[in-house]
């Protein structure tokens, strides 16, 4: 799983997916498009495969995929689903 690190590391994201399942691929694509558009300056993104790292998911309290975690800036927020509702994703990342 690739780890995307940007220069401005104020935004740290973690996306849990389930292999190549359709919604997981859609979620990855949506998230990248949003980050490229709004947070190109600096963000950190980790994509974790639930099927490969079930224990990490357990640790993060993940019960379904795809689930996006905004780890920093605090507080931690999560978005559940394939991230096709861009507004909701932006609101969450903006630290509402």
């Amino acid at each position, binding site marked *: 799983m690739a780890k995307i690190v940007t220069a401005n590391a104020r935004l740290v994201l973690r996306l849990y997916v389930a292999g190549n*399942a359709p919604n997981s691929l859609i979620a990855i694509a949506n998230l990248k498009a949003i980050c490229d558009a709004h947070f190109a300056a600096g963000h950190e993104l980790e994509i974790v495969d639930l099927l490969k790292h079930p224990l990490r998911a357990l640790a993060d309290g993940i*019960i379904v995929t795809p689930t996006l975690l905004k780890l920093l800036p605090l507080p931690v927020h999560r978005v559940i*689903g394939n991230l096709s509702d861009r507004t909701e994703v932006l609101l969450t990342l903006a630290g509402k």
Partner: protein
Amino acid sequence: MTASEERSTRDLVRRLGEAEATIQALLSGQIDAVVDSRNQTPVLLAKAQEALRASEDRYRRIVETTSEGVWLIDAGNKTTFMNHRMAQMLGCDAEVGVGRSPFEFLDEAGRAALAAHAQWPEPHPFEVRFIRADGTSVWALFGATPVFDNTGGYDGLLAMVMDITDRKQAAEALEGLSQRTERRERMLTTMLSSISDFAYICDREGRFLFANQPLLNLWGITLEEAVGKNFFDLGYPDDLAEQLQRQVQEVFEMKKGVTGETFYTNPAGLNACYEYIFSPVFGGDGTVEFVVGFTRDVTERKRAAEAWRTAKDAAEAANQAKSEFLANMSHEIRTPINGVIGMTELVLDTDLTFEQRDYLTTAKVSAESLLTIINDILDFSKIEAGRLELVPVSFHLQESIEETMRAMAFPAHEKDLELLCDIKSEVPCYVIGDSVRIRQIIINLVGNSIKFTERGQVELEVAIEAQEGDELRLHFIVSDTGIGIPPEKQKLIFEAFSQADSSTTRRFGGTGLGLTISSRLAEAMRGKIWVESEPGKGSHFHFTICLEIDHQALAPSTEEVPLAGIPVLVVDDNFTNRRILKEMFWMWQMKPTEAASAQEALTHLRRASERGHPFALVVADVQMPEMDGFDLAGRIKDTPNLADVVILMLTSGEKRGDIERCRGMGVSAYLMKPVRRAELRDAITKAMRARSLGGNENEQALPVSQVALRVASESLRSRILLAEDNVVNQRLAARILEKAGHSVLIVSNGREAIAALQCETIDLVLMDVQMPEMDGFEAARAIRKDEAGRKKHIPIIAMTAHAMTGDRGRCIAAGMDGYITKPIRAHDLLSLVENTMASDAKVADSSPV
């Protein structure tokens, strides 16, 4: 609220928010996997869905591929599902059918059945008929299973529906077929029972499988009683039952039909005759399965045929009796006429006044014509009685025909008719056939032609019609220039007792049997007879006969005085006669020239003489218009240059003093027409030889044309034994023989003849064939038997009264040397006696007949 409480509360709200988002995401299908909370493992949602879908697909496929219709109906009688097959059966689309009530697709009876069966707890198939939108219908077997919900309430029907239209139609067709078969059987049974013949079917053991009504009526039982019984069971007589049983068996074995006839005394006690036909009925494998029989009562037909045959036999017997009566009558009449003619001839031989001679001659002529008539009747009777027998012998055809024609010359010349005979040179000399019967036909036809011709000529032409190996078919034509026969009478003349018309009978006489006899004789010789004629212009009578060429008989070696190269002049006003003579001369390689009149002849003669190639011979007809043969001869002899030419005269009628005239004129020979080939050749040869010798031997060449009673020369006088029971005939024959210088010993039966031969010296026996005690045949056989081994042969001549039973053949068989037919004519008898004696002296063991 404490900080921790506030944190707790915020955390709870967040969790609730997350839970709601999770549910939202789940519901909108944005979730890929969930973590099973019990064993902490992730589960991919996509896989589970796939499995479900696959299971669903499997069931759908099963439902759609089954050959039965599947139909789901809810409790409200609405269709919730139907498979493709069901939709097909109902004639609608599966989607369209959903929501519709099954009752819409059923007929009245189907609706009632469905209502009755709908809520039965167990599936219970029943037949219904669906009516489709297009009006066609489908028969189906409807198996309905009720569906109940969790609470046990009725929740609709699951129906399995099978299309049974084909089965239904087949069943209907089968029913129709059996109905038709039954109807056909009824038709056949009725048909077979309404004919009067008996019709039945038997199996291999001869047991009846079927019998029609007439046969059942005969037996007096019903079909049910008859089936399974055989001929014995049905009370047929044992021998008849056996015969029929055997015949049935034969049909099974031979595989083909048989027919037969039976006589049967039916239960009613009537004798009846039946005709039956048994025919095989073949099974599929080619063996005989049954025998079909038809029996017909032919009693009536038999009776009629019998009656007809009896009547026919009776008629034939009557006809036979009539013919025999005629034959016997003829014989009875001939015997006295025999005496009349013979005695008349004897008296004519004595000194008589002119008047007496005239009366007696008339009496003789009358008796002879009576005899001719009787002969005709006798012949005809023989033919009708089927007793005509041909006696084939080898004979000289040409001589026989010429001799016959010669015999006809007298009556022809009396009427001043030319009588011509033209035998084509290819006609062979020796043939095997019945010469007597051939002569009879010629005499009859030529005689008729002479009778019905007032002026002109009568010609006989003989040619080969066909030849195959030794088989020869000769074609004879007798042509005349007489009154002719109208076309409508031409067929009639060959029928018995008819002449062209009855008036001709009155005018010309005769029995009218001659042509009938000739016709039958020609047929007997495998030929036929017919006529071509034009009234007023004459007739052509044709007949054909079959003969065999006799190669064994050698042509007599004639002394070959070569006539070749001799120039000869033929003088005759008759074209046909000139042609015949010319043909003969050509055959002999002479050089003939013809002249149609005496004047023309003289011109030819002078011219030839001037050229230095004079004629050596003139053959001239006596009777010619303007200048006759005698005048011509006179003129020739008076001409110096022509005087040494040899002249032969041919005449159709001999007048007193003609011979004297010939002699006076230096005519070399004087011959009667129709001239015989051999005779003409002979006369020419003699005349030419005499001329070359320079002597005058004219009288030698002159033929003797009248036959007087001969007086046998000393050397030929014989002692003759006469066996004859009839006193008149005894006296007649004895008188003739004694007058000729023979001595005669008379006995009156065969036994006496044999006795006389033992004690007397006898040169010849004259034997009547019909005598009491011992007849001529028996006596002849006894004599020959007695002679056997003694190297002795006494000539025996038979005297036959009639030829009813093939006497000629019997004479030869009995060992006789010759025979003579009664009535006895002096000339014939004496010639035969002399010839027989002469040939017997030459060849002791030959037996010419």
